[in-house]
């Protein structure tokens, strides 16, 4: 049975391949029309470069092996974002703003979600050099346009900001925050309380962190969170204000888009530094696209500047197109 594929690896047969190719062309055309230029980074590179910035989750997802030619360790990319950050810092460093897009196969050591392929085809766009609301809005509008071109079902856009969690955790005297972040990720107030109770944290601060597990919902949750946090934690107040402005602008341009707000969300590979977002499809219980602001992701390559990006997986989208047709 040597011909069987490893778990999580899959062949794409003609029917599906044609759908993927059609999506790839349509979506790349949209990216190009918005001035995003295609880049094709290599499948593997030195792990020191691929994993620069110590992104623990990314390292766990990356296949590593020894290169007999150079004697150095190589990595098979699990994500393209750090590769585009390297390109922005060194190969296209003369540009004031870089708009880059890509369609590449990435390889994961383990499936990232249930049913997920370990070799998804990632389509993404990265915007370097545009800070704040302007960049956030540009990427989110591009994301919505791409998804609407591919799928006819209603999209729910979930927005959050890593600054909320960062602010609360920065003054929290825990030797390791991994367990706490996991408990917050699962929105489990009892687990969060039990982890924090084992340490000397004042009651108000403990309450502020535990309450974060309930800070998700429709737009009204932003007012509730602002009232609860803004006085004691001005940085959280600012993050919430930014989310309000962004939503207002998005609603103006895409009036029928549905929103959800999740202030304890910590998505992706944890290199995000502000806005994080995920897109969901009505009737489908998985994330179909995500991304966020990752300012300074180019710092390990010598160029720290504003950055924001998004990505989606073409195999997933193609299977959803098939479902819609059925």
């Amino acid at each position: 049975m040597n011909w069987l594929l490893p778990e999580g690896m899959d062949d794409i047969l003609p029917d599906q391949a044609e759908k993927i190719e059609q999506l790839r062309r349509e979506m790349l055309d949209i990216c190009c029309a918005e001035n995003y230029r295609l880049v094709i980074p290599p499948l593997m590179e030195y792990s020191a470069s691929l994993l620069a910035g110590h992104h623990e989750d990314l390292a766990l997802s990356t296949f590593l092996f020894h290169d007999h030619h150079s004697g150095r360790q190589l990595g098979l990319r699990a994500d393209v974002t750090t590769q585009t950050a390297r390109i922005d810092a060194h190969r296209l460093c003369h540009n004031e703003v870089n708009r880059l897009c890509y369609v590449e196969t990435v390889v994961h050591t383990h499936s990232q979600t249930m049913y997920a392929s370990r070799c998804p085809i990632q389509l993404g766009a990265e915007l370097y050099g545009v800070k704040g609301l302007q960049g956030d809005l540009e990427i989110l509008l591009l994301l919505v346009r791409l998804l609407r071109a591919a799928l006819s079902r209603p999209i729910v856009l979930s927005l959050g900001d890593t600054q909320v969690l960062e602010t609360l955790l920065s003054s929290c005297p825990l030797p390791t925050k991994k367990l706490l972040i996991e408990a917050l990720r699962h929105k489990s107030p009892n687990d969060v309380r039990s982890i924090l109770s084992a340490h000397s944290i004042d009651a108000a601060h403990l309450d502020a962190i535990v309450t974060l597990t309930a800070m998700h919902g429709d737009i009204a949750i932003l007012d509730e969170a602002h009232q609860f946090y803004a006085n004691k934690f001005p940085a959280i107040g600012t993050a919430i204000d930014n989310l309000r402005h962004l939503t207002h602008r998005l609603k103006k341009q895409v009036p029928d888009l549905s929103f959800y707000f999740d202030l304890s969300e910590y998505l992706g590979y944890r290199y995000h530094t502000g806005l994080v977002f995920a897109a969901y499809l009505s009737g489908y219980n998985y994330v179909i696209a995500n991304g966020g602001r990752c300012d300074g992701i180019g710092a390990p390559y010598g160029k720290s500047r504003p950055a924001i990006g998004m990505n989606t997986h073409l195999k997933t989208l193609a299977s959803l197109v098939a479902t819609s047709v059925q």
Partner: protein
Amino acid sequence: MLSISITKGRIMEQCLPLLRYLGFTDAALKSRQLVLRNVSGDRQLFILRGRDALTCVRYGVADIAIVGKDMLLEYGSEGVYELLYTNLARCRLVLAGIRPPPKDSHLRVATKYTKMTNQYCIENGWQAEIIPIYGSAEISPLIGIADYIVDITASGKTLQANNLNILATIADISARVVINAAALHTKHQEIQQFKGHVISVIGSG
């Protein structure tokens, strides 16, 4: 349509008032069917073993699951949120044996909770061989498969009847209402309504 997977046995028995409130008839609940629809047709119920109920919600087949915390600790809660902590099906995950483990010995521990047992032994610095057993773990020390067991117990009577003593509590367990992470975003209102029903009928912890 909201899909709910529920753990058969003690958790389901204690959730019967909630299920009736949600519109599942006694006739349906007493039948041997494992997939049920409520009267208004807006909710369906999958009756499963704990691990399978969790798998359903992790894979997005069910939006909500009512499972024991032991399932979440043992099999992970990737892709799900813990919506509610309840006081239903309260019990403890314990280490039991005839006598306390001697220092520096190599323990043989029988359990179906292999991940949690391994983690507990590592935390205590015990060299241990974990023996997976999926039936009545209490029998293991009596027939010599293992010296100790890790299992859940509510009253401790079965352990006592088999001459086993509770040596340590590893975790307090009760039923949790968990939801698929994506369902929270796409079915927010229905899920909040369901949460309200759970609190009003069976309460939260």
